[in-house]
């Protein structure tokens, strides 16, 4: 691999142990993927920071990197962690708060922004063509497909290494020749959140390559978030091109096959839809954009409070703690569990519910696979109606 003189000096340890280790990771991985050089990135997003996932090993590594001089070389954001940062949730478990806060301390010591969200594009929307190194699969698809930026689907440690050095390897989706769609999926009539989530799960399971999707009506931002997150959960997608959405010039087309999807095929992704027993409604996967959050507040205000035995969990970025306080208080007065900087996928729940109802295919995928819960897909208005009383 061709390295600049500065990069060689970093590898030799002239910028400290942490920088050297971080760059070595990128160089070695890059070489194995056939990269000929490194490129500078504008923004790193570090995933894999939940103590429940990375445990003591992850904590020790982050502490060592911070202790031995590791500092962010570029703008860096971090993913949700496993505790509610408002400290008031009764649904999200807090038993490892002490260890999780040590992780936060190490991350912040390295100069990473304490965003604790899976929607880093809220803090810094990428520009078309910009090179990034992002972990967190839903964010990766959003960056490539909605914003036209360029990032591979990095694992947590590689995004961390990119944050410390400001470089990533030049391979995969950073190269235009690899951003080519070969399948065109035509969607006739799909409108609801549940449909978009189901479609995403279907694409993840059935399409290996980069698809181009043509919708009759241009889907809105919230629907795209659900679609992309779901496809990235059940599959390994990093780029899903959408007609009239993905910026022109950020991809190429070489269509060899056209695919139509029957609405009935999507029904099998709906999951459990018998709304009996104790239900946990969950909205906020990916974390809600302010616009989506305000729509939810308007909807919840029509009801008096959360039904006894049920729950309504809403996960939002940590940042909202500073400026959406009024709306959050209004929800909490109605018994809604609003959590900051976390989500039920990377955390543990304090109690079991008979059924989880969510609008997110990604949440359905992980809550049923990782946590063994019964999960059904429904639109937000149905979820709220199922767990709240007039």
């Amino acid at each position, binding site marked *: 691999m061709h390295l600049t003189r500065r990069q060689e000096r970093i590898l030799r340890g002239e910028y400290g142990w942490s920088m050297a*280790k971080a760059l*070595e*990771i990128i160089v*070695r*991985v890059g*070489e*194995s993927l056939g990269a000929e050089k490194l490129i500078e990135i504008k923004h790193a997003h570090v995933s*894999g920071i939940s103590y429940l*996932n*990375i*445990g*003591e*090993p*992850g904590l*020790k*590594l982050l502490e060592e990197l911070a202790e031995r001089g590791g500092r962010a070389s570029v703008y860096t954001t971090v993913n949700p962690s496993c505790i509610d940062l408002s400290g008031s949730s009764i649904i999200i478990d807090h038993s490892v708060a002490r260890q999780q806060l040590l992780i936060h301390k190490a991350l912040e010591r390295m100069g990473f922004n304490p965003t604790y969200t899976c929607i880093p594009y809220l803090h810094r929307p990428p520009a078309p063509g910009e090179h990034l190194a992002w*972990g967190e699969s839903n964010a990766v698809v959003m960056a490539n497909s909605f914003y036209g930026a360029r990032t591979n689907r990095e*694992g*947590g*440690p*590689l995004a961390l*290494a990119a944050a410390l050095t400001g470089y990533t390897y030049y391979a995969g989706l950073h190269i235009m020749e690899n951003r080519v769609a070969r399948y065109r999926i035509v969607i006739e009539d799909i409108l609801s959140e549940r449909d978009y989530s189901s479609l995403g799960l279907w694409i993840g399971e059935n399409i290996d390559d980069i698809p181009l999707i043509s919708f009759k009506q241009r889907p809105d931002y919230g629907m795209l978030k659900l679609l992309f997150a779901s496809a990235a959960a059940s599959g390994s997608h990093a780029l899903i091109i959408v007609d009239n959405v993905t910026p022109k010039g950020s991809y190429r087309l070489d269509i060899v096959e056209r695919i139509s999807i029957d609405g009935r095929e999507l029904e099998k992704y709906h999951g459990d839809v018998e709304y009996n027993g104790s239900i946990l409604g969950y909205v906020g996967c990916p974390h809600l954009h302010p616009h989506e959050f305000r729509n939810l507040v308007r909807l919840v205000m029509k009801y008096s409070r959360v039904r006894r035995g049920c729950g309504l969990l809403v996960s939002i970025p940590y940042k909202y703690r500073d400026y959406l306080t009024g709306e959050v208080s209004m929800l909490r007065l109605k018994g809604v569990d609003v959590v900051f900087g976390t989500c039920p996928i990377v955390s543990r729940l304090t109690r079991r519910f008979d059924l989880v109802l969510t609008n997110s295919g990604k949440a359905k995928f992980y809550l049923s696979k990782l946590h063994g819960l019964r999960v059904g897909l429904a639109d937000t208005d149905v979820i709220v109606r199922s767990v709240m009383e007039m």
Partner: protein
Amino acid sequence: MPRFKARIIVDGECDAEILFIDSKISFFGEVDPYKGIIRGKNVGLRGRALVFRGGRGSTVGSYIIYALKYYGNKPACIVVERAEPIIITGAVLGDIPLFEIYQFNDLREAILRGARRIIHRVGEEYVEAI
């Protein structure tokens, strides 16, 4: 002494007894870094030449490899058919020599026929199995 041409990803000396696993490993879930064992198989990794197909599963696996070093349980070297980002990252962080073997099935044959040790010297572009 049979030699196997290797791509040296993290170079370092290795002269250690082979622990051969004829599959891919997800370090996250399948390896216990505190005890230094492969779960279910109950075999120790510490000081062994760990020979297997490659990595799979969660990228948290890199942290687990680092933890093997942190808790004093790291293998002497890692020998794989295909090195992917999880294993490479873990080997760099854990200072564990990592070799990718071009003809992995030949090495597998040699091990099944009775080879016991992997030997590699810094700077060489192959490993030996004796």
